[in-house]
């Protein structure tokens, strides 16, 4: 439960704020820049929760902004952070991008949203789709509707048990699109042994369905059927899924929100083989140059292809004048990140490519560089029509009791690298 919420710029100066409870002094936010300075000076002590003068500062960052919630009491911090992230999401949905400029340009709507999303510190309505029903960016729209219907009430759904979907939605063609997206995180040692691996999967739904359809999803996982299947460690569902039904009968049933939403997410930490394996050797000739020899192999089915593969190889900060030799893809030197990037647009399963690079080093290197800090090789990729876990959608039954229409579910699969697919380098 937050007492006040501030949007602050990169220096910590408040751009826009809403005081919900009045129990935190209005000048408390003036201390926030100092918190940022302290965090910068002593990073080991930095944390997203800071107490100063009996006021608790909980903050998150988003592009060039800080969103700060101030509280006085022993609040539920997890809730506070979740709310701040939700706020970012809603405002991003409204303005495409949330940054300093869009806050200045849209302050009226932001005030309205802040008012609607939280009352006296308690989060209220945070579904963009519902909010957009009655809080619009252009006010004349609202006036027009006003005249037409004489009154524009809150969507009745807001407070219902089905608070995410309005009644009376109509589509000519009733379709539902399912995207099964798996992000693979992996940490591989220089010998090719996987030290840690996990799959973060999610099912993204785009629903173009009329009325109040009731959906039932069948998967080949162990949670929902006892036969041989994929064993998920932990599944999370969108609030539209009936959790108690899932717990008791292991059936996924739901009335979907209209449009796009994330139906479920799951996690698996079964041992995996590297999908894309990079063997990278860096030979360092002090004070003259480094040589990089790199081999990459797509260890996926021959029929599959990995797209947009990027291999980011770390190089010393002071390295320069790169020379590359390679047969496939393209090479780029990104000095500001101290990496060289090897891009392969298409990479078929079973193929193996290699690359050699040479970079010059300054003849006089600084003392600190003598102990080179190790950074891993990072890999990014996408593999369509393929899930690492083997999960499959068996069926998606759509039933709208009143309208009884024909509907078409579509399913797509994709595996991609997570934000932590890394290969450590040899000592």
């Amino acid at each position, binding site marked *: 439960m937050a007492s006040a919420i501030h949007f602050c710029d990169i220096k910590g100066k408040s751009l826009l704020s809403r005081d919900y409870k009045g129990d935190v002094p209005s000048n408390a936010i003036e201390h926030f820049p100092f918190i940022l300075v302290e965090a910068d000076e002593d990073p080991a002590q930095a944390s997203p929760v800071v107490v100063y003068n009996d006021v608790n500062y909980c*903050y998150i960052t988003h592009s060039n902004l800080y969103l700060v919630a101030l509280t006085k009491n022993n*609040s*539920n911090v*997890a809730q506070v952070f979740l709310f701040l992230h939700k706020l970012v999401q809603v405002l991003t949905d409204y303005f495409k991008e949330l940054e300093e400029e869009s806050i200045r340009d849209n302050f009226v709507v932001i005030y309205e949203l802040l008012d609607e999303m939280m009352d*006296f510190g308690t989060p209220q309505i*945070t579904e963009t789709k519902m909010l957009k029903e009655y809080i619009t960016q252009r006010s004349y729209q609202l006036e027009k509707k006003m005249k037409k219907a004489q009154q524009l009430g809150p969507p009745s759904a807001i407070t219902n048990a089905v608070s995410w979907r309005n009644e009376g939605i109509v589509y000519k063609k009733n379709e539902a699109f399912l995207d099964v997206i798996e992000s693979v995180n992996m940490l591989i040692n220089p010998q090719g042994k996987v030290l840690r691996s*996990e799959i973060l999967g999610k099912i993204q739904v785009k629903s173009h369905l009329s009325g109040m359809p009731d959906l039932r999803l069948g998967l080949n996982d162990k949670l929902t059927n006892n036969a041989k299947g994929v064993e998920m460690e932990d599944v999370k569902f969108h609030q539209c899924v009936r959790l108690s039904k*899932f717990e008791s009968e292991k059936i996924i049933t739901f009335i979907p929100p209209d449009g796009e939403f994330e139906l479920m997410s799951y996690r698996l930490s079964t041992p995996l083989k590297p999908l894309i394996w990079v063997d990278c050797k860096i030979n360092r000739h002090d004070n003259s140059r480094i040589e990089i020899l790199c081999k990459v192999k797509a260890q996926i089915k021959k029929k599959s292809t990995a797209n947009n593969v990027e291999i980011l190889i770390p190089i010393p900060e002071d390295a320069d004048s790169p020379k590359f030799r390679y047969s496939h893809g393209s090479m780029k030197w990104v000095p500001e990140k101290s990496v060289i990037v090897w891009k392969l647009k298409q990479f078929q399963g079973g193929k193996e490519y290699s690359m050699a690079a040479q970079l010059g080093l300054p003849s006089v290197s600084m003392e600190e560089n003598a102990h080179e*800090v190790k950074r891993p090789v990072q890999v990014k990729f996408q593999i369509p029509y393929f899930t690492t876990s083997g999960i499959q959608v068996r069926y998606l039954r759509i039933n709208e009791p009143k309208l009884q229409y024909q509907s078409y579910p579509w399913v797509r699969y994709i595996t991609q690298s997570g934000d932590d697919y890394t290969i450590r380098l040899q000592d």
Partner: protein
Amino acid sequence: MSIEKRIKKMFAQPKKGETYELRAGLVSQYANERKDTIKQVISAMTVGKDVSSLFPDVLKNIATHDIKQKKLVYLYLMNYAKTNPELCILAVNTFVQDTQDPNPLVRALAIRTMGCIRVDKMVDYMEIPLTKTLNDENPYVRKTAAICVAKLFDLNRQICVENGFLEKLQNLVEDSNPMVVANAISALAEIHETEPTLNVLTVDSVLLKKLLLALNECTEWGRITILTALADFEASSSDEASHIVERVVPQLQHSNPSVVLSSIKVIISNVEKLQGEEHEVVLKKLAAPLASLVSTAPEVQYVALRNIRIIVEKYPHLMTNYFKVFFVRYNDPLYLKLEKIEIIVRLASSSNSNMILNELKEYGYEFDVEFVKRAVRAIGQVGIKISKSASKAVDILIGLINERELYNEVVISLRDILRAYPEHSAMITPTIVQSFDKLVDPEAIASFIWVMGEFEVVNYESRLSEFVDQFNDLDIGVQNALVYSIVKINVKTGALKDLLAKLFNNVDKVENIEVRDQIYLYWRILSLDDSSELKKLVLTRLVKIETTIPQFQPELLEFLLRELSTLNSVLFTTTVGKGSKQTQITKIKDVKLNVINDENLLDFDDDDSETSKPGESVNILDELNDLFSSSSISPPVNNSSSTAQIAQNSTPVSNNKNTSTGGVSQDLLDLF
């Protein structure tokens, strides 16, 4: 803008002109111009300009059918009501009228805003509209009115109670609409927190049923509210606890991590009441959701990790299979990396210590110095905790000292390992001796000196004498270690007579009273004739330490388990927020973090206990300080902990004197 106005503006003072122009716009005959001007006023307000002088003119625009404009005027009112309390009364009429508007949005807006105008006079006019909106046919209005009761209570308790709003609010818990129920509970919880004596939110079996029912129908935030209320409920029997757990377990699958954490809180508060197998089965169900929390946004992860540290201490085996989840990611912010190491060392067991040490070794080569330091300490902690991995830990540490110049941190970690496993001294001492020239950190220097005294280190004389010469410039920890080691070497080998004499001769110049007393004590003891007792006293080895991982004191642990997901559980304090937790706080006010070594301190010989101070206890005290440093209220807790320790130290000192050396205590008394 007319030419006339522009000319006026040219002549007017710039600042005054702006206000003037806004004022003119606010009373313009054109609705559009008025509305645009209100926007400009709000814009000026947003950037921090004081536009409170426009209050009466803005107020004139309150009666409008344009919701957007109404909202803006209301926003202005909320911000500046305090500067013009008398004028607020002028708005009352509109508010009351608006609460009867046919549009529920307007009714809700009016009652919501009335509660936010924190002016005493407003309170008098709130009774009728609030009563009306609490009984509104539209749930959107009712849910807004429910929160408004909490606002009114905050403004004026008396009026709120006298008008029976609390009962009305309690009735709303029975409402047919889940969101109204959730907001009613949220408001009641808020009131309960500020005034626990009113007992507005007592969960009984009837309400319990209601809450469990509403749980499945609420929005994510409503669920959190209900779960929080459930967590405070004490189940009367194992059946009831089992029922609650059964209904809450499905919520572990919710996509909102905060719902998950709140569910975990409810389950943990009931799990001890479960009997037989169910206890284990339910606990097991928590592991995977807890592990998943580590894949959320960094700030949420931070809350989760701090909470997992608490849970793991209560249920050490819960997460052991998931230790890999806590391996740090390359792009984690530092605060997460540090927190993850805390969990990793606590999950170390004989079956995974090898893998954990290998992982920690990798961290030793990372970029961030703070992270590397923590990793080095963690390697020591794991080596001490898991005896069979001690030699591997030593190998890694020695490797790191050579490759990454982490002399200070490694020496301290090695010292700790020596405390636990003196048998590794042959491998460790040469490394420590070699690193001596690179040591800067006082604790590392003290460690070095302690090792010299404890184990046979050659060529110590010149080094120690350097220290003795600049005795007063040394850190107190180093002074303590120095005195201890010189005495010990002297008793053991008879060497260092000169240094000892120098120490004793200059004792009056010692600034720190504890160190001075310590030297006096040794002086007296050494001048005794009975050298066998003396040797026994000085040469006894320190008690072997079991672990250097700090733990919570049991009472604090129990308290924190009930506080999961709150600020207290993140800061490891008992002091955030006053309200309902007050009783608990007074009860546990003196709670201190307990470290296993504390007990051992009691068993130490006098000299040993003194030297142990630069060792673990200081080390851990620092950590305790760190734990508490973020809270401004906690220092008392801290102090009590350190004084307690000093007291513990000194008790055995005097006891020993009395038993082993007889008349010495009398001599000591003479001295002072």
